[in-house]
Every structure is written in structure tokens, then in C-alpha cells.
């Protein structure tokens, strides 16, 4: 090895070492909070779920999997799971389907297009707490706007949030109202990416609207559909504000979802251990969805 080569080599090593140091410093501001408030707590949650701690006592017992067993043995917990499934499917499906249909409607060069897009999207940026209060007034059984409109078109006035049958639909309607425009914007971007000539070719072949939808649009936007389904599902698992304002999980537990039970167990019953185990169950469900998404995207989704 001659001198020059050695020189280059030490310089390279030095650069690498410097990069390591710089990288460490540059990552630190993001990593510290991430470790303290995300990754650390995630691991801590596993441990907590094996205890019976109550937030206050100096001591606690390791109870193993007892928290999980007691959840899995209680009928109320299965009700919560069913509610969560009902809420998730009920809020994700209409948002995805409605979002796609609205995007198709708005994907034409017609005056007014941008105004409609803006108005339909606007619910997404408003605070759920405030708008849930407004919706609970609109759904007021005796004096609300919705029941008034129902009586105008000869539909029966419904008890809405005060009935265990109709409370969940109210919460779902409020959630869909908020995410519909958001889903639509994703589809608008996806539709813009579809080359015009595909439709032109179909037009010449005399393909009708539904066939175009079925054989061109839906397959070509499938990556967006998959992305939205997963993100909206994760969002549905963390829905809280509208439930807390409109129903508080009631009546008689009809709108108590996993996250709401988590909140009540932790901050009303002060059972940190049991709450942590509900958190882990939410984590498992979300992970299953993430894995399904990964698997589906490899197998079925059409990428252009």
C-alpha cells in the first residue's frame, strides 16, 4: 500500500465516523421523544398488562395473563368487540365507497368543481368535539333538525342517541361526515393519474359507465382503496371524541368501543394493568390489519 492509498482510506474512515456522529446528533431530537413517548411506552405497556397496578399504590402484583383471561371471559368484552367491529365496518365502508363515487363525480372539468371539493372536505379540519356537540343537537329526538326533516318526508322520528339501537348509527354518521371528503381527496389524486386514453378507448368500444367503473376505474384505484381501508380502520380504532360527547359509550354500553373501554378502565376505574392489556389487544388487531394490507398489496393490487 502506498502512502496515497492509505491517506484516502483514513480519510474515508474518518468521513464515515463523522457521518455516524453527525447522524446521531441529527436523529437525536426526533429519537428522544420517540423513545420516551412511543417505543418505551409500547414495551412498558406489555409489562403493565401483566400487573394489577392502580396508578397510585406504591406496590403492585405481577398477575401474569390474568388481565387478559378476565377480559376474554367477560361477555361485556365481547360486546365491546362487536361494537368496535360494527363501528369500524360501518364507518370505513361508506367513507371508501362514498369517497370514490364523489371523486368520480368531481373528476370532470365543470365550473364549481373546486367549490364542491372544498366544501365536502371542510368537515375534516374542524374539531370533532365541537361538531359532535352540534350533531348531538341536530339529532335531538324531540327538537332536532334531523327528526324534523324525517317527518317532512313521512319517516318516523327516531330516538337516536338515547336508544341502544340508533346510538351507534348516529356515531357512525358523524364519523363518516368527517372522513368522507378526506377519502375523496385521495381518490381525486388517484383518478388524475389514470391516463385519459384508456377511457377514450373504452368510449370508442361503446363500454357503458358501469363497465368502465368495474373494469377500469376500480382496478386502477385499488392501491388507494387498500391504503384508505387500512388507514381508516386504524382511525376507527382510535375514534373517541364523538363517542365521548354524544353517547359516552351508552346507552347501556351500546357504543362502547375498545378505545372507550380502555379510557374508562384507565381513567375512571384506575385499573392501569387491565387498561394496558386492552391497549395490547388494540395493538394486536391493528397489527393484523397492517399484515393483511402488506399481504394484499403484494398479491392483488394493480399498480400501474
Amino acid at each position, binding site marked *: 500500500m502506498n502512502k496515497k492509498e492509505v491517506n484516502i482510506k483514513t480519510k474515508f474512515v474518518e468521513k464515515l465516523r463523522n457521518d455516524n456522529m*453527525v*447522524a*446521531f446528533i*441529527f*436523529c437525536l*431530537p*426526533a429519537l428522544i*421523544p*420517540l423513545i420516551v*413517548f*412511543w*417505543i*418505551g*411506552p*409500547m414495551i412498558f405497556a406489555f409489562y403493565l398488562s401483566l400487573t394489577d397496578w392502580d396508578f397510585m399504590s406504591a406496590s403492585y402484583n405481577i398477575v401474569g395473563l390474568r388481565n387478559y383471561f378476565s377480559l376474554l371471559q367477560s361477555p361485556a368484552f365481547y360486546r365491546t368487540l362487536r361494537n368496535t367491529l360494527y363501528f369500524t365496518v360501518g364507518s370505513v365502508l361508506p367513507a371508501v365507497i362514498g369517497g370514490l363515487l364523489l371523486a368520480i*363525480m*368531481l373528476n370532470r372539468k*365543470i365550473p*364549481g368543481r373546486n*367549490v*364542491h371539493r*372544498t*366544501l*365536502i372536505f*371542510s*368537515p375534516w*379540519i*374542524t*374539531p370533532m*368535539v*365541537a*361538531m359532535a*356537540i352540534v*350533531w348531538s*343537537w*341536530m339529532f335531538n329526538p*324531540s*327538537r332536532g333538525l334531523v327528526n324534523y326533516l324525517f317527518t317532512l318526508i313521512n319517516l318516523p322520528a327516531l330516538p337516536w342517541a338515547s336508544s341502544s339501537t340508533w346510538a351507534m348509527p348516529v356515531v357512525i354518521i358523524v364519523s363518516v*361526515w368527517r372522513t368522507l371528503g*378526506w377519502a375523496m381527496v*385521495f381518490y381525486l389524486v388517484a383518478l388524475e*393519474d389514470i391516463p385519459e386514453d384508456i377511457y377514450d378507448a373504452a368510449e370508442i368500444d361503446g363500454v357503458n359507465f358501469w363497465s368502465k367503473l368495474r373494469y377500469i376505474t376500480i382496478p386502477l384505484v385499488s*392501491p*388507494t382503496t387498500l*391504503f384508505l381501508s387500512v388507514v381508516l380502520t386504524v382511525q376507527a*380504532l*382510535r375514534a*373517541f*371524541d364523538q363517542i365521548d360527547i354524544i353517547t359516552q359509550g351508552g346507552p347501556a354500553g351500546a357504543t362502547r368501543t375498545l378505545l372507550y373501554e*380502555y*379510557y374508562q378502565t384507565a381513567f375512571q376505574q384506575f385499573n392501569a394493568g387491565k387498561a*394496558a392489556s386492552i*391497549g*395490547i389487544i388494540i*395493538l394486536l388487531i*391493528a*397489527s393484523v390489519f*397492517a399484515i393483511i394490507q402488506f399481504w394484499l398489496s403484494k398479491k392483488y393490487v394493480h*399498480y*400501474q
Partner: protein
Amino acid sequence: MSPSNIKTIFRKYKISRILWQIFMALVSLIMVTPFLWMFLSALKTQKEIKAFPPKLFPEIAQWSNFLETWASAPFDRYIFNSFFTASSIVILHIITTAMFAYAITQLNFKLRKPLFALIMATYMLPVAVTYVPSYIILARLGWLDSYQGIIFSNSVSVFAIFLARQSFLQVPEEMVDAARVDGAGHWHILWKIFFPLTKPIFITFGLINFVLMYNNYLWPLMIIRSREMYLITIGLRQFFIEQGAYGVNWPLIMAASTIVVTPLLLLFFIAQKWFIRGVGDTGIKG
């Protein structure tokens, strides 16, 4: 094509256009009905708001409802708390995101790929799992019920890192090399080259995260106790409960909701292209 043929197509197109306008107007109207109803209800008297069938407009607009609402709870304090914490969080997001995205796109170090994978994994995971442990950590730090508790527990945005990484990768290499030759350090390259070139993405996530933090409810509800620390969402919920104690005072509650929602609607209508573009950009493309 024969002229009559063109005529039918033209007519068909025109009719479908009118139908389109009617349908879209209806959809948009439904979407903004809650805003309109909130605002109109805020201007009614107790008696008017309880009338059934409801009247669309109040006899005389009760603007005093807003004054009465403003006077009956410290909304100025709540709004200040929300604006202050949300802005601080966004500033921290900009700093932590820029530095982290620079490291994982421009620097050569061993943990580069696993680090990015780790960050992306946390994006998919439900934040709920971390609430109870994070609460305990904040309690140990003595940061419950404090500004620093709200701010630092929210100081990283995975969504922002994801967006910033995408656009940092598109910065032309020649510009970076040229700066290096001139002897510029990493810090300088980040803030004088990358940041100005990718500013749109920072504006986008800054706005979106500001809105998310202003609207944040569950986490602050867990860690905030004292009234002077209330964020606007918690203050509004408290007001809702208090006004409901002796027969619900809906006009004042609607006025309070209007006070809470209006700043965001204004922000949105001024900066809407940033919001809509930002949301669309986060979609996964083939």
C-alpha cells in the same frame, strides 16, 4: 358524425351537466349543514331554538349570545393554550423532522435503514397502547398538567418525517455536492439548501399538524387537570356539561362551538390548497 347526432350528444351533455350541478349542490349542502345550523342556532333565543318545527332564521339575531358565552368561561385562555401548544408543537415538528429526514436521506450510517423502518412501523400502530404508560412517564417527570407535557409528548410527527423524506430524496445531488465543495457543513446544507427547496412540504404538514393539535382531545383530556391549562376542546366540553346542568342552554353552546370552529374554518379557506394537496400527497402511489 351527422349534425343531428352532434345535437343529441350536446343535449345529453347539457342535461347531465344540470343533473350534476343539482346533485353536487345537494351533497355540498348536506356537508355544510352542521356549520350553518350551528351558526344559525347560536343566534337564536332559548325559545326559538326549542321551537318545533324549527325555524331556519331567528326573529332577531341574538349577537349578544356570543358576548354572554365569551363572558361565562375563559375562552380567551383556552384559545391561547391551544394556539400556544399547537404552534410550539409544529415548530418542534419542523426541527425534528428536518434533521431526521436529512440524516436518513443524506448521511451514511449503520442504522439508517432499520431506523426508518422503525419509524414507519410506528405510523401504523395505534397510539392508544402508549397512553397509560406515557401518562405514567409524564407523571414521573412531573409534567402532568403542564405546557411542556403537552408539547414534548407530541413533538415528533411520523407523518411529517414520511413526507419530508420523500421530498428530500428529490433534491438534486449536484446542488448538495456543490455546497460541499464550497465547504458547507451539514447544518448549513440542511437549512440553506434542503429546507428552502422543500418548503411546500413543511407548510403542508405544519398546517395539517397544527389543525390536528388544535383538535386534539383524548390525550389532553388524560393529562390536563386544572382549568387554566384547558385546551379549547376540553374547555368546550366542560362548557357543554355546565350549560347542560339546568336545562340545556343550546344557543350558548352553539355560540361556543362557533367560537371554537371559526378560526379553523378561516384558516382552511385561506390555505385550502395546502391542505388538500398535502392530504392527496400522502397517498401511496404505485
